[in-house]
């Protein structure tokens, strides 16, 4: 028993130690200092602790995507590292690696590959649906559905495909981002704007938006409610907008429309 506690204690002590080893690398990356991050990740990638080694390899892959100047060879190396992690485990590093395999295909490689990005994201959602990586990937997969995957499909069908992803969203942030992406696509594709209203209302209810996005959403809800004849709802959101954005340049027109709704 004593030995078990001893070993347990060692493991517990080792976890923060491993974290602190790599924390400097991640901190450097938050400051966009990829070269500095590599100096931390590279020695740790051969650590005796497999978890530390895997996280370090993952860190190297991420750093390579931001090491200036980014070259195609670097991106290929990162892809190889991520593929290796995906093939050799099912831990958080593997989920993160799968996410970055999708992101490389989506945005990092010189010629984007929407189909490959979508394939990686779908597999990530299938394998690690509850993970932060999959929850993040949902809205990015939605963008692929809404704009690039099936350009021959009518916009309404693309919106419907994106709406199906809502079933996989398990956090308010992921769900809110999906609703916002869909509402924006409805406007962009010039579908009947009223279709965006339920998505915007859902996003507002879920919260998690930054201040600017929230301001825009409040105004969009107010305007679409006014156009739909939902006077009370429109008035509520004009009021909210005005209260939260006292210096916004739209205050004059918002006040004018609020007065119209309250007649």
């Amino acid at each position: 028993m004593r030995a078990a506690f001893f070993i347990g204690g060692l493991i517990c002590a080792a976890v923060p130690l491993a974290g602190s080893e790599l924390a400097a690398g991640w901190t450097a990356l938050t400051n966009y200092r990829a070269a500095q991050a590599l100096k931390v990740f590279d020695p740790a990638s051969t650590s005796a602790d497999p978890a530390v080694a895997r996280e370090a390899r993952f860190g190297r892959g991420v750093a390579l995507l931001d090491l200036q100047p980014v070259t195609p060879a670097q991106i290929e190396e990162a892809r190889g590292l991520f593929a290796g992690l995906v093939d050799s485990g099912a831990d958080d590093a593997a989920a993160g690696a799968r996410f970055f395999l999708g992101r490389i295909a989506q945005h990092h490689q010189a010629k984007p590959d929407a189909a490959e990005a979508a394939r990686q994201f779908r597999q990530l959602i299938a394998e690690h649906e509850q993970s932060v990586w999959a929850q993040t990937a949902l809205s990015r997969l939605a963008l692929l559905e809404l704009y690039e995957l099936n350009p021959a499909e009518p916009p309404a069908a693309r919106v419907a495909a994106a709406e199906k992803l809502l079933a996989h969203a398990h956090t308010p942030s992921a769900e809110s981002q999906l609703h916002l992406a869909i509402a924006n696509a409805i406007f962009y594709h010039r579908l009947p704007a009223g279709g965006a209203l339920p998505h915007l209302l859902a996003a507002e209810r879920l919260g998690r938006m930054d201040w600017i996005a929230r301001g825009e959403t409040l105004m969009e809800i107010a305007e679409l409610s006014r156009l739909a004849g939902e006077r009370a709802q429109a008035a509520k959101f004009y009021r909210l907008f005005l209260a939260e954005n006292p210096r916004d340049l739209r205050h004059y027109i918002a006040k004018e429309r609020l007065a119209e709704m309250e007649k």
Partner: protein
Amino acid sequence: MKLTGKRIGFALLGAAYLISVFLVARRSVEEVTSDRVTIRISQWQLEGGVREAIDAIIHRYEQLNPRVHVVQLAVPGGTTYLPWIQSQMVGGVGPDIVEYSWPWPDTARNFAPITAEVMQPNPYDRGTPLEGLPWRDTFVDGMTSPDNYVQALSQYYGVSMSTGIHRIVYNRQLVRTITGRDTAPRNYREFLALCEEISAYAKAHGLKLAPLANSRTTHISLTSEVIGNTTTRLAARVDFAHRLKLEPLDLAIAYVRGEWSYDSPELVASFQVLKEFGNECTPGFLQLERESALMDFVAGRAAMVVAPSWESSSLLQICPFELGAFRFPTPREDDPVYGKFTQGPFSEGQITTGMPFYLNRHTAHRAEALDFLRFLGSYEGSTIFTRVSSWLPVVVGVKPSDFSAQFAIQADGYNWYGGFLAPSNHGDCQNFWLSELYTLWGSGGSADKFRRALREGMGVPIRDGLRRDVMAGLENVRREDGAAAAAMELAPPASRPEVLRLVTIGNETNLYQARDVLTLAPPMR
């Protein structure tokens, strides 16, 4: 020892060296031995009064915070400042606070966002009418200017010090002599009538006198305002996202899709208003610099002048006559010709605040630099700045000084943000229409020729702008992916975010929309 010229030269050189060593050593020793923190602030506004205004703010701040010493680095603008600050930042020796601008490179890498801070009250506003308000809401525009809220990064970065508003300034004495009254025209028709009276007077008396002095630079913001005000109904029609606001990207997408064009009746009407306005200006003003326009006005060769607010204090000093000022009266709904196209009143809210200060991401004195930044953007800081520089304030409630009060922003009214002459996040569209103004105001120019020039040529810079939006969007996404993953890895397991903080979904959406609309065939020429 004989005192030769050579020896004197060596002695002077030696003395200079020793003085330099002493000065450098004293500063280093002071930094090491004193707990006083020195922060540096760089800026490029070398106009009269501005350096003095910053010095006055520093003086007051150091009284309040004796532990902090602030050094102002005033560096010439133009082609000097940007390379200088870039080399400083790359070398890791950049000032703690930097005057910067959002279109310049590497904002995210070099500067720290202040989003969390602007949502909180500014402690230096305690005891003022702004106490308790989020710092953001203490600025006249709610910090919505592109230099404050950097849209591509979805973060607040800059704290502005001033803004520029233009007015038509007039020579009261001369106008009174010509018309028997010295009040400002109340509407567009009265403005045209005033110009006609001035021209008739000049002709009758054989004078070289134009109604309005103007220049190739001072007309730009006025021209944009005329276009914006005359097209409010068109703006409402192309607001497909129902935000009561048009971003340049919205306008570019709608343009490429053929949802508006330079043949739109509202735009044709606005070009006609511009043509009429140009007819009243000094002949050949498109070739004149602003100094020439001022000279014409001061010398009595023009009864009015288009003047930006930062000229207001100079005008008072150099004009030997009484001045009046008014906002250009764009036609309103009751105008017999243009009324049907527009809906007012018009807000001047689409102000672009300027002289923004950014916080160095890698400063060794973040707390002190942020604190000084708060003082700069406080009620007291802005009051000092306005009093000493005579520039317009951007903090709510701070009164402009003397004559510049006539340049105070009129914020109430309709404003759709986006300008139909600048449907792009990049400068190419503006460069294009500026280069085509001769078709409007040049010899033989007309509103119709200008319309045709824009219709023929504007598509190219709009599409170029979209392509650059895509490239910039990709750069943002790529850069933030790594930082977001890193931030997530650093978060304690119990407080991990629900999703990674990538670029916002809105910004990534913009990238897709710009790329998608570029796949549409260009309209037929």
